[in-house]
């Protein structure tokens, strides 16, 4: 069934978009990530312009992470105090990111910057996660105990605060900085940032795995809602029809993903996610390195993004 998208200005197959939303939703529910780093490239692949894809995906991630956050909230797997400190940074970072985005766009190298950040970020995070997951898996095979949680330099910083639900005593400085960073990256690359946030919170801030996914979803939700608003007001590029189809597919998939995620052990989950992130990064890298099919591209100015 063909449907005409009003902002993207092209007809798409409803079931294809619905299936894409469901698949990405499943993955996002399973790993507790927004899934923007999968959705945006997929939309560009079916012919939607990058600008419209990025802008519409933000609202899709918001819906997906809201339904996820609600189910984590009911299970008391969200730390409200930690989430609000993260949000202070997140909102600042998003505003900074949108400003930088505009500057880069004016310079005409935005596409390259996006591709390069995807390669660097997804490559690094993916391989770190993959190797860590592999090591953890080997340890459990051998029956060895996981290494004890040690305190690092971050725990020596001032302005400490007690986060009751997570049972940690931590300085707010690194938490706000992490929030700014995620908001900034998210606005530039059009991603939720959950896949970077979760490992940072686990390895650097030592947030226990019981609250980490739910709390990160709250940050994703708010920054993506904020980004949706900014895109709608400044660029008029949010395609509500496209977003709605993605949302319906996404939230449905996410529900099944959350359940599937609970059945898989933590190490295996990280290994899988690492592999997934790495492969998207590699795909971007290949695109940069191999000779493109067509050396020329056309961009319309003034008609649509």
């Amino acid at each position, binding site marked *: *069934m063909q449907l*005409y998208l*009003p902002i993207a200005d092209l007809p798409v197959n409803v079931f294809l978009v619905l299936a894409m939303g469901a698949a990405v939703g499943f993955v996002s529910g399973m790993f507790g990530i927004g899934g923007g780093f999968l959705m945006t490239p997929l939309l560009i692949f079916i012919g939607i312009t990058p600008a419209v894809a990025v802008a519409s995906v933000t*609202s*899709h991630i918001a819906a997906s992470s809201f339904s996820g956050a609600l189910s984590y909230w009911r299970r008391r797997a969200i730390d409200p105090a930690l989430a609000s400190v993260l949000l202070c940074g997140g909102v600042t970072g998003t505003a900074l990111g949108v400003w930088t985005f505009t500057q880069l766009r004016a310079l005409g190298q935005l596409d390259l910057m996006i591709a390069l950040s995807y390669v660097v970020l997804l490559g690094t995070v993916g391989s770190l996660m993959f190797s860590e997951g592999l090591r953890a898996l080997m340890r459990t095979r051998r029956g060895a105990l996981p290494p004890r949680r040690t305190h690092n330099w971050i725990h020596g910083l001032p302005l400490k605060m007690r986060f009751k639900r997570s049972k940690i005593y931590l300085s707010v400085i690194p938490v706000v900085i992490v929030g700014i960073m995620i908001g900034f990256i998210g606005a530039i690359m059009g991603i939720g940032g959950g896949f970077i946030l979760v490992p940072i919170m686990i390895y650097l801030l030592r947030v226990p795995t019981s609250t980490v996914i739910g709390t990160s979803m709250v940050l994703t939700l708010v920054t993506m809602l904020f980004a949706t608003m900014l895109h709608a007001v400044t660029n008029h590029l949010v395609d509500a029809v496209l977003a709605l189809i993605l949302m319906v597919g996404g939230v449905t998939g996410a529900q099944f993903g959350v359940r599937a995620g609970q059945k898989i052990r933590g190490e295996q989950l990280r290994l899988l996610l690492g592999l997934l992130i790495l492969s998207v990064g590699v795909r971007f890298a290949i695109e940069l390195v*191999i000779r493109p099919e067509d*050396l020329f591209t056309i961009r319309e100015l003034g008609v649509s993004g």
Partner: protein
Amino acid sequence: MMRAALALLLVLLLGSAARAERLIVSVSNHRVTVTPNYSGEELVLFGSVEKDATTSADRTAYDLVVTVMGPRADMVTRRKERTFGIWINTDYRQFLQVPSYLALFANRSFDAITSPEIARRQQIGLNNVLLTQRVGGDYADVVPNDAFRSAFIRLRTQRGLYREDPSAVTFLTPTLFRTGIPLPAEVPIGTYEVEIKLFANGAFISKTETAFEIVKVGFEQFVATTARHNGLIYGLVTAAMALMTGWMASIVFRKD
């Protein structure tokens, strides 16, 4: 629709004034509406060559070139080059106010219709249509085999937005003609100008113009205008929609 166009044609034919040769044309639909399930369509252009007393008797065979131009927009063509092992956009040309849709139709090949000189002057064929580029501080069109110009035309042709077909115009009688104007699914919205040029024995005789409009209607139109004019409300509604969808899903799929 075709019958209506023909009826209109007859009315126009009866009320004509005296001149050497006149072209009378009409398109089957002056207002094409893009609906949710729009997947492209074809318009039909009808016309007639009208002679009068002053027309010399030896003029029997006419040639026609139909040019359809969509709304104009600025476009940038970029070229990638290998730098430090990766492919980067290095060079670009800006095309100023070029048609977003461009179609050229004729009843036979362009070089059979007229001389290269006249073809250039009358912008006959994709190679001769004026596509203004900004080169540094200058505004000019370049030679047809320029890399950026030919890449631009090639990419637009691949999307079905630029086309030339030297056999699309058919003469039903020696003076009555018709041609189809294919409009692809991703057709740009706006006003389309149609220019019909008449040739005889290689010489340009006369031309006429008509136009049609492509509009979005219904829900799409509403969404598009709201997004453009009421960005804040549109954003708020979209955000609310996201929250609603998420909330409803968590209720529908709630297990306990």
